[in-house]
């Protein structure tokens, strides 16, 4: 407990501060400043993570991370795509590879007409697809059952005013037959056999049919598969994997998700960085408080510093005493701050509902705030706050070591 002496003295000074009147008052404020900064940083950053996570789940769960397609300009089938699929599955980080044929189409019910993205799939490869968990009626595998069956989103079904069992017409406007009656677009009547509700745009933008039916519609031989869609464990790994794939599988075009969704994520991360900047202002200003608190202590303890020097304590040791003391303040602020921050984050929603404040405005009364508390976030915040408080102790500690015993101890 005694060794080393400067640590021992520094600790004792920090503990005893709260008794000696105004110095404790300022120390309290400096700790409060750091605490406030750290707590609000943790909370706000976790909420921002939540939003980003939500977005990631919603989009990246559906949008394939990498699409390998045989179609250069003209649509074309991908020859023996099974082998290509095995090859792709072999890559590390690849969770699933699904074959697909895709085209724009019109879907028409007695009441309305709407443009959709038609996807011809092979159900047994799509077991991992997010839709399986969100089927409202019927199953995705129903596409293998009755020929010319179709699965669509609930929002679309609502718009077209159709339900399972009804007939809907799929029209491929840019695939036409030149008949003496002029151009007749290829069209076929399908039966609705399944409805899903994922809660994102695909609910009213994408319809699924068996790949063979799609091949027929698009006048393609065989099962018409022309694309392989890769889903990775971590979407952000796509950037690294794509160049590798390009070398190994020449002759195909590769598109990654951030070509389509990149702008959205860039915007979210830009907002997050702005928030980091603002909040770190609090901690920075709080660090100034530590400086002033520590200076007060140095002035208060001048007598003792003088006498310690008479007892032979070198300047270097004196600096350590006050760094220890400053860091203890910083530590208190950071530890309490992170505890408060984590507690606040974990039950932010209950807190919000209890106090009734609804930051989303009336339209979103029930919606809960998405929260994602990341350990490394907290670590970074704690570390940077400690660093800031350490830097804040340097000046006062230096000044303490500059005390001249002769002046301090002079007392005629």
């Amino acid at each position, binding site marked *: 407990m005694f060794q080393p002496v400067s640590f021992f003295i520094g600790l004792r000074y920090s503990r005893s501060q709260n008794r000696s009147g105004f110095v404790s008052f300022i120390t309290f404020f400096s700790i409060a400043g750091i605490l406030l900064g750290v707590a609000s940083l943790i909370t706000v950053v976790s909420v921002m993570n939540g939003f980003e996570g939500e977005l990631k789940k919603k989009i990246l769960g559906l949008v394939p991370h990498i699409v390998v397609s045989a179609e250069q300009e003209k649509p074309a089938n991908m020859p023996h795509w099974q082998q290509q699929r095995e090859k792709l599955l072999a890559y590390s980080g690849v969770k699933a590879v699904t074959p697909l044929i895709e085209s724009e189409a019109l879907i028409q019910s007695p009441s309305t007409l709407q443009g959709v993205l038609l996807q011809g799939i092979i159900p047994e490869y799509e077991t991992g697809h997010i839709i399986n968990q969100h089927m409202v009626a019927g199953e995705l595998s129903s596409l293998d059952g009755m020929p010319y069956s179709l699965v669509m989103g609930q929002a679309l079904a609502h718009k077209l005013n159709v339900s399972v069992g009804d007939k809907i017409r799929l029209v491929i406007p840019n695939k036409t037959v*030149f008949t003496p009656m*002029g151009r007749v677009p290829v069209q*076929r009547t399908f039966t609705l056999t399944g409805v899903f509700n994922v809660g994102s745009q695909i609910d009213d933008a994408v319809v699924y049919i068996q790949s063979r039916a799609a091949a027929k519609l698009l006048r393609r031989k065989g099962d018409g598969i022309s694309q392989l869609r890769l889903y990775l464990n971590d979407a952000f790994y796509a950037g690294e994997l794509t160049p590798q794939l390009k070398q190994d599988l020449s002759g195909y075009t590769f598109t990654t998700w951030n070509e389509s969704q990149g702008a959205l994520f860039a915007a979210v991360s830009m907002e997050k960085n702005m928030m980091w900047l603002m909040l770190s202002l609090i901690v920075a200003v709080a660090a100034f408080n530590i400086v002033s608190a520590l200076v007060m202590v140095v002035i208060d303890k001048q007598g003792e510093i003088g006498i310690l020097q008479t007892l032979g304590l070198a300047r270097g040791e004196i600096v350590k005493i006050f760094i220890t003391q400053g860091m203890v303040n910083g530590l208190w602020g950071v530890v309490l701050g992170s505890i408060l921050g984590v507690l606040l984050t974990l039950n932010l929603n209950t807190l919000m509902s209890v106090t009734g404040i609804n930051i989303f405005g009336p339209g979103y009364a029930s919606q809960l705030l998405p929260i994602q508390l990341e350990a490394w976030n907290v670590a970074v915040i704690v570390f940077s706050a400690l660093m800031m408080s350490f830097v804040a102790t340097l000046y006062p500690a230096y000044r303490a070591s500059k005390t001249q015993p002769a002046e301090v101890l002079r007392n005629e």
Partner: protein
Amino acid sequence: HVDGHKDIGAKPVSKAYQTAVDTAPADKLKQEAEQAKLALLAKLDNIKHFSAQFSQQVFDADGNLLQNGAGNLVVGKPDLVYWQTTEPDESLIVSDGETLWFYDPFVEQATAYGLANAIANTPILLLTSQDKSIWQNYRISKVNDTTFAVHALDSNSQVKTLELNFDRDKLTGFVIVDASGQLSRFALTGSDFATAPKKEQFQFTLPPGAYLDDQR
């Protein structure tokens, strides 16, 4: 303006042709149209029925060849048509006088249209119909001795002009220009104007497993 194109007798319809007609003074124009119409009707009247093979070439608005096709057709009166396309994909159009059937074997579906509003969109049926009143939806002009042009007056109809080529009284081919400027040229070969087609020729039976999309 189309080069490298097989000689199938009829002269191609040039773009220039279209504008010449408009500049003639209104009344002279109307009189010519009347004469052309009578001449065409006369020719059509003496075609009772015929059957033939056809080859088809499709050009887009800028004249690039989009697709070649072939098949055979049998026409009878009134409003009896059997049109089977074999190239590049199989499809069958049958008009039995009341309904116009369009069967696409690829997607195993037949679509039925009411003949009345189908005609407005398909001038080819003019050949077969006896109802003179439908002609007032069209303007007829005589390109030259062997070629007549039928222009649809309704700007929204799918087919803008139908050009019929004759070799004396025999129809040798025709050209369809649709709303977006695409041009389909049909040349008839092995045409037989003599033998009358059997009635069943124009009966359509839904093949098993095919779905009927009834738009009547």
